[in-house]
């Protein structure tokens, strides 16, 4: 091989070794999933049961009751009569156009994903804010979770757990959990150092500082994270439907493959309506949490 050739063609590994390299990793993973797939699936059984139960609850309850409960939650969260009325119309239209059942499926999986993201994300965020080393370790993982194309990590998940709700749930959580982790960490780190020093001066221990000072003061930021997490979970609905998650994503997918424009548009608009309701409610709830910041002098 001459020198000029070296500079023109990249010295890559041989096709043969690359093939063996890929094959051996795939093979090893296949063996792993055959060996442990069932066991790992069993771990998620309780989540699956809950998910199915919640979905059935939403679908089988009388629709006026479901709408009433949703409107009550919307009003309690936002304290806005306009948003409540708007939500009522959106839900009625969704039902009228025959998307009620799919919408309930989507609401159930988004709800469960959001709660799991919050339950996992806030403790991870707290751990991150506590130590720079944890932060240095977790940040690149979050970067990967947010930028890696979802299809890529869907492959091993599907290989391991097959097609269905749980792989969908995992895919949504992987995509949607980073903001809540990042913003919990940020919110706690942003707490005024002087206020923390005051807590120290009065003899607060670590736990007291966390629950009485850091978390309450970080709450508005954490809420911005929850809002982001919900939005990203909704954005994953269509991709999750590719691996068998029922809901508004499936008709969208069907519409894409068959070029049914109106069907795609209607279901897409239903997703948008859900997103707007979730977003406005969680935002105005978050804003109410920081009322002490906007209080004016009297």
């Amino acid at each position, binding site marked *: 091989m001459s020198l000029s050739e070296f500079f023109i063609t990249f010295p890559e590994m041989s096709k043969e070794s690359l093939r063996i390299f890929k094959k051996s990793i795939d093979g090893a993973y296949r063996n792993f999933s055959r060996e442990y797939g069932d066991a790992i699936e069993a771990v998620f059984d309780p989540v699956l049961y809950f998910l199915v139960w919640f979905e059935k609850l939403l679908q089988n309850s009388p629709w006026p009751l479901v709408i009433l409960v949703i409107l009550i939650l919307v009003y309690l969260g936002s304290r806005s009569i306009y948003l409540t009325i708007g939500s009522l119309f959106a839900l009625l239209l969704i039902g009228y156009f025959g998307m009620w059942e799919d919408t309930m499926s989507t609401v159930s999986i988004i709800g469960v994903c959001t709660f799991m993201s919050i339950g996992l994300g806030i403790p991870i965020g707290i751990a991150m804010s506590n130590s720079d080393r944890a932060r240095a370790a977790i940040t690149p993982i979050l970067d990967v979770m947010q930028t890696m194309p979802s299809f890529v990590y869907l492959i091993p998940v599907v290989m391991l757990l097959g097609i269905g709700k749980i792989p969908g749930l995992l895919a949504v959580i992987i995509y949607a959990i980073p903001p809540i982790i990042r913003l919990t960490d940020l919110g706690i780190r942003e707490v005024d150092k002087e206020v923390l020093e005051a807590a120290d*001066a*009065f003899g607060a221990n670590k736990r007291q500082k966390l629950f009485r000072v850091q978390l309450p003061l970080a709450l508005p930021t954490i809420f911005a994270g929850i809002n982001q997490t919900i939005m990203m979970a909704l954005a994953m609905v269509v991709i999750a439907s590719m691996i068998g998650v029922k809901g508004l994503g499936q008709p969208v997918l069907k519409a894409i493959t068959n070029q049914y424009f109106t069907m795609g548009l209607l279901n897409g608009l239903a997703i948008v309506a859900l997103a707007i309701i979730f977003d406005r409610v969680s935002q105005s709830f978050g804003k109410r949490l920081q009322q002490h910041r906007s209080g*004016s002098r009297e």
Partner: protein
Amino acid sequence: MNKTKIKISNLYKIFGNNSKKYIPKVRNGMSKDELLTKYNHVLGLDDINLNVAEQSIQVVMGLSGSGKSTLIRHINRLIEPTEGSVLIDDQDITKLNNSELLEFRRNRTGMVFQRFALFPHQNIIDNVKFGLSIKNIEKAESNDKAKFWIDKVGLNGFEYKFPNQLSGGMQQRVGLARALATDPDILLMDEAFSALDPLIRTDMQDQLLELQKNLKKTIMFITHDLDEALKLGDRISILNGGKLVQDGTAEDILMSPADEYVKNFVKDVNRAKVLKIKSIMNFSGVQNNSDAFVKLDDNIESCLPKILESEHELNVFDDKNKFVGSISRNNVADILKN
């Protein structure tokens, strides 16, 4: 003088990764600048020795960067000393373990901060209750105590407001009430009134002195304002570059400043306003038969008309109306001319 409450001995603080290593160098007289340029370590406190008497107000004064805020944080160990000891009632604070330190902070010290450092998410009564709730004191009891102190600092009716709804002066009253609510025997005040405007500052100083008459806490008060120091301090310590350059009463500082730095500090002070008759009077004077007199502990300014109008020396009486000496125009002229 009361017994010693806080005894600080040979206290050093060096900021940096390898602080212990440079103690010997500082002992041998390495200056703050040299330590910084050669070894990139900051000398915070340099061999501080200070005794604070029980129930007194000890003012610590200095320009910014002189180490005064560092020093006060060694009393409740918000900053760890590099070397030396801080004895409070003969107990060495620097040797406490973690849980002992928390107990100590919960029960023995209260702290007031320059920029208030109130908890913005809690209303006033919860702020005042903070120290009590940390100690898990029963709700009814802590409510009563908080209300008592809110009343004491004159914030009745503001219990359920949030800190940012209050003016700076009111916020610092909350800070004071919060520090007093746990009934600590030591009060640490870190430039507590520096962020307030002058009228409110004077007001707060008066209120502190008024409270102290009954409270009789041991107070360490940090300030860069000499007038404030002279007004509040039973004793005044002056720090320069982490070194304690002088510790004494207001009179000591004014009448015999230890070095140029202190001299510069006090040169603009109105001495007549601060000093008392006894600092400048003539103890060997002879009583005359005029009716006019001044008292030993009167401050000079308030007696100026009397002294200046009098043709001859003026009698000075002590508080039992016993003659102790005399004072003349010349005595006053002496202290006013420098």
